[in-house]
């Protein structure tokens, strides 16, 4: 089998005595959308933070296209083509669309020492990108993010990841708080991203959204990857839910009867 785009091997992460990740191994192939599922506290977000350079790992290895990498900061990860879109923290609401697209990578006009931004170039790229992702309603690129709808914001964040030719786009709860039509819009951006050659990791609480878009489902429980090759076309939502909770139907019924919610 070809070497996957991303391979994380035996990743451990502990916060003091708390083991957030215990020997988690995980991979993403080229042009693949992987759904990462797990209950709260299963270790999904820690795994993602390790991969995006936001938190250092305690032990384990990360390979990109077979080459071992050391991700010490978010800029390291970005330089390696890993772009993460965090829920709530992807965009700066008070700045314009154009400025958000270039957040952290602002183009500079010559002469360089004056440190002036090339606003014209930023606006032009932004205008094109907005059209590409389907926001065609004549929104000027100077509009602040704060006056966009939730779906439009996700679109801008995804457009940013696509523009900078990242190999892997990590989406943390991209469909949270979105309406039905907006969710469909975001899901189709994700498909577009894959079709144009990007891989994605898709994290969502709503299993139905995950089922609609991903090629493969990975489930985590208590800091471990417990299933990493679930085909959404051959598996039912109920089966995946069982794997997430790690309980049989009877155990779930008993838990509910005890007054303890199952998730």
């Amino acid at each position, binding site marked *: 089998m070809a070497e996957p785009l991303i391979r994380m091997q035996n990743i451990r992460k502990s916060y003091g005595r708390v083991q957030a990740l215990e020997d988690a191994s995980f991979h993403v192939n080229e042009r693949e959308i992987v759904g990462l599922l797990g209950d709260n506290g299963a270790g999904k977000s820690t795994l993602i933070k390790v991969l*995006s350079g*936001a938190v250092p790992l305690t032990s384990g290895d990360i390979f990109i296209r077979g080459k071992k990498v050391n991700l010490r*900061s*978010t*800029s390291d990860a*970005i330089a390696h083509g890993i772009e*993460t879109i*965090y829920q*709530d*923290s*992807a*965009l*700066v*609401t*008070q*700045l314009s669309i154009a*400025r958000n697209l270039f*957040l*952290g*990578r*602002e183009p*500079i006009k010559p002469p360089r020492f*004056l*440190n*002036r*931004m090339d*606003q014209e170039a930023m606006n032009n790229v932004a205008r094109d990108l907005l059209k*590409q*992702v*389907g*926001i*065609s*309603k004549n929104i000027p690129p100077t*509009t*602040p993010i*704060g*006056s*966009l*709808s*939730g*779906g*439009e914001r996700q*679109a801008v964040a995804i457009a940013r990841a696509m523009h900078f030719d990242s190999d892997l786009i990590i989406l943390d709860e991209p469909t949270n708080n979105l*309406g*039905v*039509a*907006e969710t*469909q*819009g975001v899901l*189709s*951006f994700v*498909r*577009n991203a894959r*079709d144009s050659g990007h891989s994605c990791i898709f994290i969502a609480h709503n299993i139905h959204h995950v089922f*609609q878009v991903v090629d493969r489902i990975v489930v985590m429980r208590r800091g471990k990857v417990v299933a990493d090759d679930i085909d959404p076309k051959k598996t039912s939502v109920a089966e995946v839910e069982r794997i997430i909770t790690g309980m049989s139907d009877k155990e779930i019924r008993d838990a509910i009867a005890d007054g303890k919610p199952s998730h």
Partner: protein
Amino acid sequence: MTKTDTAPPLAGSANRQPGRGIRLPDETGAVVALAALVGILGWLRPSFLDPANLWALLGQAALPGLLAIGMVFVLAMREIDLSAGAVFHLAAVATALLIEAGFDPWLSALAGIVLGASLGLVNGVLATTLRLPALVVTSGTWWMIQGLSLVVGKGQTITPPGADGSLFTTLSAKAFAVVPAAGIVFIALALAMHIVLHRTRFGYRVQAVGSNPRAAAYAGIPTARVRLLTLVLMGAMAGLAGVIHGGADGAIAPGDGSAFGLLAITAALIGGTSLSGGHGSVIGAAIGILIVQVILSAMTLFGVDSAWSTFATGALTVLALALDRLVRLWRNRRVDGGQDHPFD
């Protein structure tokens, strides 16, 4: 699932109205207020409009104004620097003592500015390594710096020998015979720093860090370095103001500039910079400090006991805070459907 070439138009994008029409610049309110104030005062007391009086006003506004320029950057980063007034004073005292010790006035002035920047660096290093808000760090360093001023200046008024001091003749001379030199420095820097805040990558990153620090960090912006540089800038501006104070006014009294830090914050708020970060206006702050100065001078003009000026400055600060908050709550109601800023 059918594949689509372009994404479907997004629902929920139609019902949006704010921010799309013609937007008045944020400084509009401050400009109107300043014009109205000057107009009313000129009408009541025509002598107020005397050019000499207006230029003197500009000269008085220049020193706290320089601090306000730096403070806009700090506020835009959603931080507050309380130590600015103390830095101002220590820089003034240090410069004066160096000149007294026989150093070249220009070199001493440079030393004063560098001292201000280094104090800003200390604030910045403490704030970034301890991961504390600058407000907390500077409330401590403020006392320390003030204490140093007292130790170094022995709590006395310092009058640097201005006999041949080229700096002092330059600074106390009024360029073109009317405009105070401090005023020229202030106006030039206000315009330049306005461009820095709105047109350069540094200025933009300051706003990004202030608006959403986590998003900025995740996008690869070195947030610690931005915070550090901004506090160094604040220190350098306070140092520069201190140096000019020593040069222009000739004497440095122990209490000088103690209110400048708060004045700078008030001026920035009046000028449309918000306490919640993410954005600021240097020109607005410059107009803001002029408004404060006009009000203070009006009080003198109408014979109000000068003891009230401290109270008035405080009242202005509270008023500016209240307005900032009310405008913000009102805007949030329109834009986000009642949600407050997630990181407020």
